[in-house]
């Protein structure tokens, strides 16, 4: 049996568990964890956007929060100011994030390493302060809260995000679709071009790959993923705020990616889920829980530089009878 086959089986089991969660958790009076799982899925998606750039193209971005914020505000402004329904508002959020990434990407992808990281932070800060100033549109530092419109209507039946099961399943559906899309993407010629650029942009150029174009495409797709996460988070929280556009939020995505495993498909999701779990359990008993999160990150970098997913794959490959 191969590592890939084992991981596929485990992914299927995980998916089955996630689908069953809305019906299983209430049996244990643990409905609260449904909301937390939904949040884990959203943050996992957000971490995946940082992973796409860092793990697959070699660009360390501290600016993904900008596109997350555009996704949030697209939804909040769409619903609150324009009276849009669920799907148009979701579309507006994703489109706003993609458009912003397309523009920012033109400038950012010409740079690499620390220069790239710095320009992504600068873009993030510019729009963070702009969002704080534009109170009539964004609600400023108070943010923008709204009542979510129904997801769909079937005759007399209305699917509403107020129903926690509906909300969770909607988020799960988008998360699964987004990760499936990434799996296809990384296996495609474009995904291989990403890897070539990550390994050596000079060699990639010699192979005829338009490095800037590939980076730009990756940047826009990553912006779209972050925008989708932001749009879902706005619906989940019924709120949008400039605080989510701050570069510290981007840093969290990088940390989740590193802990979960850069360059892997599900690693960022695992990192986000694990650290959300740590936060959820520890923050109720110790307000300085971030010290533990910091310790987890340091231990991961030192003892498992490829993250949890990387360490898992390496452990599987060492098992007798398992092909890497």
């Amino acid at each position, binding site marked *: 049996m191969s590592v890939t086959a084992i991981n596929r089986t485990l992914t299927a089991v995980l998916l089955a568990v996630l689908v069953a969660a809305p019906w299983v958790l209430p049996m244990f009076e643990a409905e*609260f964890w449904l909301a*937390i799982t939904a949040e884990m899925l959203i943050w996992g998606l957000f971490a995946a956007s940082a992973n796409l750039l860092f793990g697959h193209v070699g660009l360390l971005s501290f600016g993904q929060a900008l596109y997350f914020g555009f996704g949030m505000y697209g939804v909040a402004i769409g619903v609150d100011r324009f009276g849009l329904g669920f799907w148009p508002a979701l579309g507006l959020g994703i489109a706003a994030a993609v458009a912003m990434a397309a523009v920012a990407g033109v400038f950012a992808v010409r740079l690499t390493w620390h220069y790239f990281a710095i320009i992504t932070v600068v873009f993030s800060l510019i729009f963070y302060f702009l969002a704080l100033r534009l*109170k009539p549109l964004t609600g*400023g*530092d*108070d943010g923008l809260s709204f009542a979510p419109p129904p997801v769909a209507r079937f005759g007399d039946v209305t699917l509403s995000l107020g129903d926690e099961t509906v909300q969770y399943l909607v988020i799960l559906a988008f998360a699964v679709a987004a990760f499936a899309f990434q799996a296809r993407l990384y296996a495609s010629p474009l995904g291989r071009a990403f890897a070539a650029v990550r390994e050596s942009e000079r060699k990639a150029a010699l192979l005829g790959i338009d490095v800037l174009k590939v980076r730009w495409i990756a940047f826009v797709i990553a912006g779209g993923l972050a925008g989708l996460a932001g749009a879902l988070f706005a619906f989940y929280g019924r709120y949008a*705020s400039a605080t989510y556009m701050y570069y510290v939020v981007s840093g969290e995505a990088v940390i989740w990616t590193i802990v979960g495993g850069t360059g892997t498909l599900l690693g960022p999701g695992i990192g986000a889920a694990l650290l959300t779990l740590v936060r959820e359990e520890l*923050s109720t008993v110790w307000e300085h829980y971030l010290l533990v999160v910091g310790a987890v990150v340091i231990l991961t970098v030192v003892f498992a530089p490829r993250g949890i997913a990387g360490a898992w794959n390496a452990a599987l490959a060492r098992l007798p009878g398992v092909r890497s």
Partner: protein
Amino acid sequence: MSTTRRSFLATALAGGAASVMLARDLYAQEGGPIVIGHQVELTGGFASWGYWHDKAAKAAAKLINEGGGIAGRRLDLVTEDTESSPATGARKLRSLIQRNRAAFVTGSVHSGVMLASIPIATELKTVYFSTGEATEATGSRGTRYAFRSGTDTYALAAAGAPWAFNNLGKTWTMIFPDYAWGHSHHQEHKAVIERLGGKVHDPIAVPLDARDLLPYLTRIPQDTEVLFSVFFGAQSVAFYTQAKALGLEKTMRMYSVSGTMEAIAPEDMEGAAEGVVVVENFPRMLRFKDDEFHREHLRIMEVDPVHARETSSRRVYAKSHAWQAWENLFLLKRAIEVSGWRTKRNDPDVIRALEGMEVPNSLAHPQGAKLLRAQDHSGMIDCYISRIESNEYRVKHMVPRAELQAMLPPRVDFTTQAL
């Protein structure tokens, strides 16, 4: 007749004559504890305020339980830290309601957190008291489930601006941090001053991270009579220190709201705050509301009666806001008992009981008598206009709640919303 501490508590809490043993019996007869959540800023930018909100809520819960609990049931106060972040605050609110089964929540003083929380509390059909100043919480973003016992920017402008206009000057300049709290104060005060016939210069919005305020202070027009400032924390200290260095107080009157120097002692600013006029919700000095309830409240909170400094530390009581964390528990206790609430199914009765609730000056309500106005769920309270003299907050004028209410027509009517 002498009043012992025990008899005083019993009288003040109306029903608190029961001893702890009796209270235990009552819990056993009436059912399990009532869980109330406290969503508070224990860490992050608002931690210096949150410390006091936490202390006030815990002290009030202890007092309630010593007096027999709520309708004979023990009050379990569950506290969650928002980290002064809307994202965390919203998550902690869900945790309080869904995980800890809090039936009611007294909430954040952070405007972003409380505005992020109101839609969630509403959706989860849970009564939520916010303690910050964003007008929207009991206005455009409020709901039937959202209450606030203190003042917002609308009320603070109505309380202080007319007096300041008549006593400090007619030509105003407003300087504030470039974010919603500052802009909100600017809009509300500008409206009042212009309505009274005064002149308001273009506002000066200062970036949030600015510590060198000189470029902004030099933009203040020469003919300014009143400089209205709204800053927070370190930027507030920077503002007063640098304004003093420029000698602005010699040519204009300095006017502000309590939030600007909340949890800060004037003496720690080495004279920079001298002469500043501030609108307070709860006078910092005992002698300007000198009654047994205020005195006992300060004793329980372990603060001195002059500077409101904690007796065991250098901390200064965030008095104009944190009293809400104390009083909200007593408002809920009263509403629960009046309405006969037993389970979450009875929440609409608690809401109806809170709407229009009037409470007397008491240990339960040491800030003073107040009305929780039915339409906008806002507290109508006495306000105080104080001037800092010799590092002390000396009250110059009290605005009675009836006067405040008359100047503050409700902008919304939540009672029309279905429950």
